[in-house]
């Protein structure tokens, strides 16, 4: 495991108003890596998908706890973990397929696809009845190292 240079943990209730809060929190924490606007958009989009999944699917009929952990490891890697203690996912492989959704017409089934394409790594661990942990990593290269 890579050395942690900084982290924050934020726990909040699974209310949909907290989707916007989670995005602002992730973007604010990531700002110390000096990301481009494009990278900041990727970070906000990915965390929004993961938190929305927890709100919609982990706790469909109740309010529950969601833990957002943001971590920076050596080499300028941002790691975002979204954990819940909700219903869990029976078949993670199926859930990760594009267009697969159990969320009805209000959901597109593209959440995991977007997390995958906007982040470098995506890991989904779930136990039915116990909860789900989504971990995403993205390297934010420093601009001094030859970026624009």
């Amino acid at each position: 495991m890579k050395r942690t240079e900084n982290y924050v943990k934020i726990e909040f209730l699974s209310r949909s108003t907290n989707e916007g809060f989670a995005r602002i929190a992730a973007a604010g924490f990531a700002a110390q890596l000096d990301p481009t606007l494009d990278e900041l958009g990727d970070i906000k989009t990915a965390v929004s998908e993961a938190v929305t999944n927890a709100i919609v699917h982990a706790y469909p009929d109740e309010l529950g706890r969601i833990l957002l952990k943001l971590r920076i490891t050596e080499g300028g890697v941002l790691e975002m973990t979204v954990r819940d203690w909700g219903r869990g996912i029976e078949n993670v492989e199926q859930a990760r397929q594009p267009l697969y959704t159990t969320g009805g017409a209000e959901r597109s089934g593209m959440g995991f696809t977007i997390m995958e394409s906007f982040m470098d790594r995506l890991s989904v661990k779930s136990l039915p009845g116990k909860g789900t942990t989504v971990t995403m990593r993205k390297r934010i290269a420093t601009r001094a190292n030859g970026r624009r």
Partner: protein
Amino acid sequence: MEVSASSDERRLTLYLRGELDHHGARGLIRRAEQEIDTSLPLQLALDLSGITFMDSSGIAVVMRCRQRMRELGGTVTLCHVPAQPRKVFDASGISKLVAIE
């Protein structure tokens, strides 16, 4: 999430402003369907110039509008799409199903 509408001839334009996430999408879908059912347009334009953030909830909104417009024999066009929503549309492959101006 704010919505305003203007319609001319058979084209209905919905101007969307703010953050289009799951929290905002539910009200937006309802509003869009009301506007469509009122003006029965042949073309629906979603103007996204005022969108400051969009996640996959926006894809669900567009797909829902597309389905409703197909029932009317019409089409959906996305206009003035900022860079961040554009990236979400591109990742989802929706650009193949809906015209982007």
